[in-house]
């Protein structure tokens, strides 16, 4: 075996469907250290298919950290050990030969398991449709430069807008709270002048939807910020709370 290849023991969550009991199953895989984590799972799946077994289902698409599809808990950490990195951009050079890796899905009652490592995150869409928008019909906009926004403010709003909707914040939170996700959208729109007319309705409606979906409350653990692949600051949650309180006055 060349130095650039490592052998790993995997414990992977397998679950046939939403209402079936799941379990961790053991596998072994040999992989180049230059491969990505998802490419390691591709190799495992090729092996399983050749053996006539069912491959491991997991979500993936862009594989460059922007679509928010990938959603694996690696050794107990949402998206794995590398900070500011979605699991699709985690490379195998961060693992050692002979290591055991446990791979599980996001776990939250608001994110029911579909199959194996795939969960249903449609609750996030419903939170956005409750108010994560500015009501402006196509064609009714004014000239873009008629709205002046200082660079610092625009950059600040941008930082919150980079959320990829992966749900790691929920998976990492001991309360399975969606506060960072919801707070990021509320903060982006609250900072911008375009978001001002609807700010009260927006925060009330989105926070309400978060509760309806069954996400827990935030109790300031800060795990969400630690696992966020885009490094979104927990200050979003503070801003959401201020917006919420202010909305009743």
């Amino acid at each position, binding site marked *: 075996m060349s130095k650039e290849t490592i052998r790993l023991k995997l414990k992977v969550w397998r679950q046939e469907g939403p209402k079936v009991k799941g379990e961790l199953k053991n596998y072994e895989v040999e992989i180049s250290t230059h491969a990505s984590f*998802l490419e390691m799972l591709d190799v495992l799946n090729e092996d399983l298919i050749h053996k006539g077994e069912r491959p491991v289902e997991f979500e993936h698409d862009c594989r460059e950290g922007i679509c928010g599809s990938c959603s694996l808990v690696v050794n107990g950490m949402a998206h794995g050990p590398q900070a500011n990195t979605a699991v699709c951009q985690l490379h195998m050079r961060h693992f050692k030969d002979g290591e055991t890796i446990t791979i599980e899905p996001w776990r939250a009652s608001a994110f029911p398991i579909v199959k194996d490592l795939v969960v249903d995150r449609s609750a996030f869409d419903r939170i956005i449709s409750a108010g994560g928008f500015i009501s402006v019909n196509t064609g009714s*906009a004014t000239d873009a430069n008629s709205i002046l926004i200082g660079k610092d403010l625009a950059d600040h709003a941008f930082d919150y807008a980079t959320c990829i909707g992966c749900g790691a914040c929920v998976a990492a939170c001991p309360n399975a709270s969606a506060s960072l996700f919801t707070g990021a959208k509320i903060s982006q729109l609250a900072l911008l002048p375009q978001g001002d007319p609807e700010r009260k309705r927006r925060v009330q409606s989105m926070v309400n939807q978060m509760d309806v979906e069954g996400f827990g409350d935030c109790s300031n653990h800060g795990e969400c910020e630690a696992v966020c692949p885009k490094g979104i600051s927990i200050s979003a949650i503070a801003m959401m709370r201020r917006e919420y309180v202010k909305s009743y006055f």
Partner: protein
Amino acid sequence: MSINFKTVENSSRLDAKAPSGPLESKWKNHKKDVKLVSPANKRKHTIIVVGTGLAGASAAATLAELGYNVKALTIHDSPRRAHSIAAQGGINAAKNYQNDGDTIHRLFYDTIKGGDYRAREANVHRLAEESVNIIDQAVAQGVPFGREYGGVLSNRSFGGAQVSRTFYAKGQTGQQLLLGAYSAMMRMVDAGKIELLTRREMLDLVTVDGVARGVVARNLETGEIEKYAGSAVLLCTGGYGNVYYLSTNAKNSNVTAAWRAHKKGAFFGNPCYVQIHPTCIPQSGDYQSKLTLMSESLRNDGRVWVPKKEGDTRKPVQIPEDERDYFLERKYPSFGNLVPRDVASRNAKYACDEGRGVGATGKAVYLDFADSIKRLGQKTIEDRYGNLFEMYERITGDNPYETPMRIYPAVHYTMGGLWVDYNLMTTVPGCFALGEANFSDHGANRLGASALMQGLADGYFVIPYTLGDYIANNSLKPVSTDHDAFKASVVEQEERINKLLNINGNKTTLEFHRELGAVVWDNIGMSRTKEGLEEAIVKIRAIKEEFWTNLKLTGEKNTFNKYLEFAGRVADFIELAELMAMDAWHRNESCGGHFREEYQTPDGEALRNDDEFAYAAAWEFAGEGKEYTMHKENLVFENVKLSQRSYK
């Protein structure tokens, strides 16, 4: 070897319906002339939108705002995952905020020229006109574009242009624009005007009396084959770059919806026009599942070079200035590193073919920021490209602030797609194609920052008018999903899925896809030859035969089964690949992304043949095993003079 197809000159099946009159007033007059549908009548029509990227989300939102009932299907778990999200660099608009001489006509001209004179003038001018409205709309939605300290919007320049007309949100412009369109769409979901159907894959276009009246789709969670009927179908399903297996496309991007529509009568336009993007992270091994793009915007401040000497293995910093070849600046002094993508890609390939490539594989060139960092400071470079630099380091382990990036071309975008008329309607009445899924605006090569522009122009500002005109002009009778056409389609799709699952061969879907990709990359990639294309057709036919007799697939159909999805898509890619080869084989010229080695100027530039090939090739599927028919839409240039593209 025999490659047989029928040819129809000046085809009557291809009425482009471009309005008459001067270029500048075509779209204005058309908007004035289109028939309108009253608000009370819009409520009676269901519009099926397939795909929720920039084109699909913007169309769904806008049509719902107007009062239509929209059913929006996406293969993803959320509309926000569509691959538009990954576009990095920016979006063009002829705002002329920089006072540097930009006009709508100049954006039109750059796009026509950049496309190597193989696009329809009227469509491209409309695109340039609508570009300015997109920026206004996006800002109103809260899209956080980059700004100057005074509060106005920032611009950067992009390849193929000498003005700064590109708007951007750091290196995440696609994400921000998609989230803007997605939020507009979700607002209409909340209003009850859009029914959002996630994890649905369109498998067939259903026609009744030759008119598109719905789709059949697989529910990717339950495996159920579902039927959706409506007054029109909008295909906003992106491009087919994944035919190459390795590309910058997302893993789920596919041609299936467009291909199935093609087999139901929608002609496929210019399938051989593919864009190979010059700045991607090079491949590192066989396990590689995709390639990652580094935005073209990097060429604003990065300088492309290779060592002058062949086989120079010194570290880049050890190579003195006078032993470096900044080949783009040397060969194209007026555009330098900002030449269009096809030119930049081809020149990187030449440098590597000469043995001057760098890195472990020798298939890479440097993109160096040292001069810009010296000139502007690291802070400015970080502001402009911070996330791209981080991404590069995460994947390669190298820090581009200290050592130049290594880049190599990769498949990125497909200019070809379903043929559409000026109204974005395919050759199947009632079936429209928007965004990358159609062939319309980029000719043989797309300029940077123009894909976002086209997707959003089609969805926000074109289809609302042209779809209304179609609805108003046709008295469509209601069609139910109990119609025989739907039932027959469901049976056909179920049979196909059963067939895939019951082959029980030895080769996996991924192995077939990789094999296909290698053939397509080698023979229908950056440069093509008659012999290579003939060889490709033989190989592709053999892959197709083996696929249907030796595929190994496990798992079941009535459940989530990603590899079953992949298998269905790879089967379609195999068929498309053969058509691409045939299209590239018949086009005896070089233009834009289609470079035939036999047709080049003495200094290696693409040599067009306008006398014989100034047309769009639209391919008609005649049935399994039957000869294709190639219809020609002659391209008429009244406003630009065809010339040898020069960026020197």
